[in-house]
Structure formats: C-alpha cells, structure tokens
C-alpha cells in the first residue's frame, strides 16, 4: 500500500471517528490534489431586511436594508455596509430578493462584485408591488473580493422604496466548492 504522510502543525492531534455499528465503510480519495472542504471552512451567511429603503427612480442604488443577520459562519458580512467579503477562496452561490413597496414600474435587482455589475434581473412591469429576486454563481478570491446588492426602479416619475418584508427581502451566499 502507498504511504500516508501527515505534514503540518507539530502539536495537536487528528481524530478519525468511525461509526459505532458493525459494517464496512469506504472513503475513496480522488486522484486530485486540493483542500478538503468541511462545514468549518465553507463560509455562508444570510441577512434579511426588516426596514424600508427609499429609492430615487432611475438611479441604481446600493441596498442598505439587509441589516438583520440570521447567520454568518465566518463573520464576513458587514451589516453596516451590507457588504459580503468571504475569507475563503472559491465558488459561491449568491441569492438576493427584494420587495418594492411603493410604485415601481420596472423593478431591478443587481448583484455587484467589487463595485461593478455582475448579474442583473428585472421584472417587465409591476404596479404597487414587485418582487424581483436573483441568483448567481461567482468566484471569490477569499481576501478582497466583495459582493453587494443594488436596486433600481425605472419609472417616469414618482417615488419608490422597499417594503421591509423579510419574506421577500434577503441576501445570502454559500460556498459550494473550493478554488
């Protein structure tokens, strides 16, 4: 059999726990190199909005309403700036939704990466309420890359704003694989 080499920290221990029942369990290691991803090194967060945010029509505006953090396993979400900067490099599934509580003829929602549009979604038309939501798969470098949500209401005039209904207003991300 091939050898098993353990390198790294000279202190501490590594524990492998096996099932306390009879039987044979097999773990197959693929013929690839990489970092083993476990829940402890796969960041995820989710924040919701319980507050309203006023918007100027036809101005793409950064969302600042996702202030209630439900979980943030690696402390990477800043609820003051509404910015997510994950600290592990890899690919992340990001999702966001919003509800426009005031008139929004064509409501938009964007995911911005590092201050630029990454992906966009809009409803064709809505009156009174519109509930656009968006998903995206994005690579993050684990140090400087950050995600934000932007909103926009295209209309000839009037005012727009979000509802603050946390069933519709959420911003979340989860790492799905390493770099």
């Amino acid at each position, binding site marked *: 059999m091939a050898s098993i080499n353990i390198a790294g920290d000279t202190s501490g221990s590594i524990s492998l726990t096996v099932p306390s029942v009879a039987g044979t369990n097999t773990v197959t290691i693929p013929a690839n190199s990489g970092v083993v991803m476990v829940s402890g090194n796969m960041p995820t967060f989710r924040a919701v909005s319980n507050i309203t945010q006023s918007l*100027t*029509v*036809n*101005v*793409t*505006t*950064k*969302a*600042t309403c996702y202030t209630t953090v439900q979980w943030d396993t690696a402390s990477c979400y800043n609820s003051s700036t*509404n910015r997510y900067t994950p600290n592990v490099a890899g690919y992340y599934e990001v999702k966001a939704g919003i509800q426009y509580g005031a008139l929004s003829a*064509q409501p*938009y929602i*964007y995911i911005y990466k590092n201050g630029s549009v990454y992906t*966009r979604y*809009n409803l064709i038309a809505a009156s009174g309420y519109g509930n656009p939501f968006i998903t995206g798969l994005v690579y993050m470098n684990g140090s400087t890359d950050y995600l934000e949500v*932007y909103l*926009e209401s*295209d*209309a*000839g*005039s009037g005012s727009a704003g979000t509802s603050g209904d946390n069933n519709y207003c959420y911003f979340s991300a989860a790492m799905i694989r390493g770099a």
Partner: protein
Amino acid sequence: MNLYEKILSIYPSLTHEDFNGASGTIRLQNDSDGKGDYIKNWSHPTLKQPTQAELDAVQ
C-alpha cells in the same frame, strides 16, 4: 430637484427609457455612502454629458 430631474431639465428629449438599466445609455448610481447620486456611465449617441456647472445651474 434630484440628479435625474436636473438631467431631464437640461435635455427634455430624454425619457426614463434612456436611463433603463437594461437598454438605456445613461446610468445614474448611488452607492449609499452619503455622497449622493452621480453619473456612473454616459454613452448617449448624440447628447453629451452635462458638466457639473450645467447641473449646478439647474434650479
């Protein structure tokens, strides 16, 4: 009067479609950092981007 309204005042021929996030040629943005609305991108085929002085002159 906000930035959008000032631009419409300078160029009455513009409509909200020119600011449309998908097909418009003018993008206004607000980064919610206290600095207010600004022109993120202006690529209108015939109208030039107004100067700050022109915007300031609109009442």
